């Protein structure tokens, strides 16, 4: 693997976005807006907000990065530039890693802004470790990016790519523990929930926000999320076909 080709691809993606300021504003602004909305939704019920906010801090960047990267990759394919890249010396993994890096940089900005606003003006208070929450949210956004890249290798049209949100993200969201605590789910659903990476992402964020003690469960959450990132990129490189019909 050549890191210079990965960097070049990330740089190119960011240059493309620089010419599209509205997308950057949406990317960075929408999660903030949603958090503000959430805060006022709960009004005086501060305890509810304090409980839910960390999970959503993990969810919003994950979802947004997922959808943005899958559409970006689809555009690469539709414009013929993906085919061009596949006839050049860059490897499939380098292409995906470049995407991961480029959007990862945006994810850092996104997550840091969300945390600044939620802990600042929105007055989120936790007993947990903010740095760990930052780390988790960041890894969750990166996981969204790499899962988006993996899924986009299966999409042949805009319609398919957009459908991945309700088909792939919504079920994970329902089973992630945001709506019902995972340990209160029926056995079968709990099992299903255990298989989904988002469950660990949300668990991890919520655990680190509620307590500073580091336990085995937090370690498991972190491990799953950290492994899911390169794993989905590698799988994506396998499923991305050089030769098409």
């Amino acid at each position, binding site marked *: 693997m050549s890191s*210079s*080709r990965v960097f*070049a691809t990330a740089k190119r993606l960011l*240059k*493309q976005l620089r*010419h599209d300021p509205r997308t950057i504003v949406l990317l960075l602004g929408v999660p903030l807006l949603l958090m503000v909305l959430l805060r006022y939704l709960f009004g005086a019920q501060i305890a509810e907000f304090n409980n839910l906010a960390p999970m959503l801090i993990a969810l919003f960047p994950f979802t947004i990065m997922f959808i943005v990267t899958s559409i970006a990759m689809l555009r690469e394919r539709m414009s*013929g530039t993906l085919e061009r890249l596949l006839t*050049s010396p860059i490897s499939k993994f380098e292409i995906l890693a470049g995407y991961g890096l480029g959007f990862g940089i945006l994810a850092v900005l996104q997550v840091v802004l969300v945390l600044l606003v939620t802990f600042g003006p929105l007055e989120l208070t936790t007993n947990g470790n903010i740095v760990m929450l930052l780390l988790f949210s960041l890894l969750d956004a990166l996981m969204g990016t790499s899962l988006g890249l993996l899924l986009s290798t299966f999409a042949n049209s805009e319609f398919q790519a957009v459908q991945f949100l309700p088909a792939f993200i919504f079920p994970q969201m329902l089973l992630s523990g945001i709506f019902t605590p995972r340990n209160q789910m029926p056995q079968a659903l709990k099992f299903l929930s255990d298989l989904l990476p988002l469950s660990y992402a949300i668990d991890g964020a919520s655990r680190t926000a509620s307590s500073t003690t580091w336990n085995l469960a937090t370690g498991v959450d972190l491990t799953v999320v950290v492994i899911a990132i390169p794993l989905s990129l590698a799988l994506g490189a396998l499923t991305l076909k050089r*030769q098409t019909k």
Partner: protein
Amino acid sequence: MEAVLDIDRLCVRRSGKLVLNNLTLEILGARVTGLLGASGSGKSTLMRCMVGVQRIDSGTITIMGISAGAKELRRKVGYVSQSPAVYLDLTVLENLDYFRSIFSLPYSRLREVVDTVSLAGTQKQLVSSLSGGQRARLSLAIALLPSPSLLVLDEPTVGLDPLLREELWNYFHELAKQGCTLIVSSHVMDEAERCDDLVLLRDGKIMFHSTPATLKASTETDNLDSAFLALAKRAKSEF
């Protein structure tokens, strides 16, 4: 003379239809070979096979002795697809610079290719603001960057004014003189006249492969237009 490209009994099927039908072809080095045929005759599919992005059903394609699409060939084979494969939301220079880093080439190479395709005045422009012809030239410029020894160009001169087209064809021949092999698809007859060799495709099969002069002689015509017509009529009557 050694064949640079060697295709042996190539079959490509697309949704049940045979797009390339048991096609065998040898292309000689350091020449400009024109690939001609009506739309739907399989030109683009054949070119995609040459650069290794087309799924093939049977047969082999080797370029300089290496199987098409192999890693070792990706610096040596340049490809320009029919619709320009460029980033519309980047400037001309940003597009070129990205591919320059993919091929790890020096910056000086940018200047050279920009001049070759006469895009010097538009370097800082966003590609989305360029005309179709300018986008096509940028797409060509990207393929020229690594100085490939085989160039596969799918209708590279569509939408270009006659002067520019003339310039590019002169450049193609200059490249051939330096040892580069070019395969250029076209459906414009005056371009066929400028090729060293002609390959005529019809329904995924090769109808004719020789020099323009031989084609004219064998059909007893004095221009390629009538020669193609004569060939088409002959093929039709054989059915």
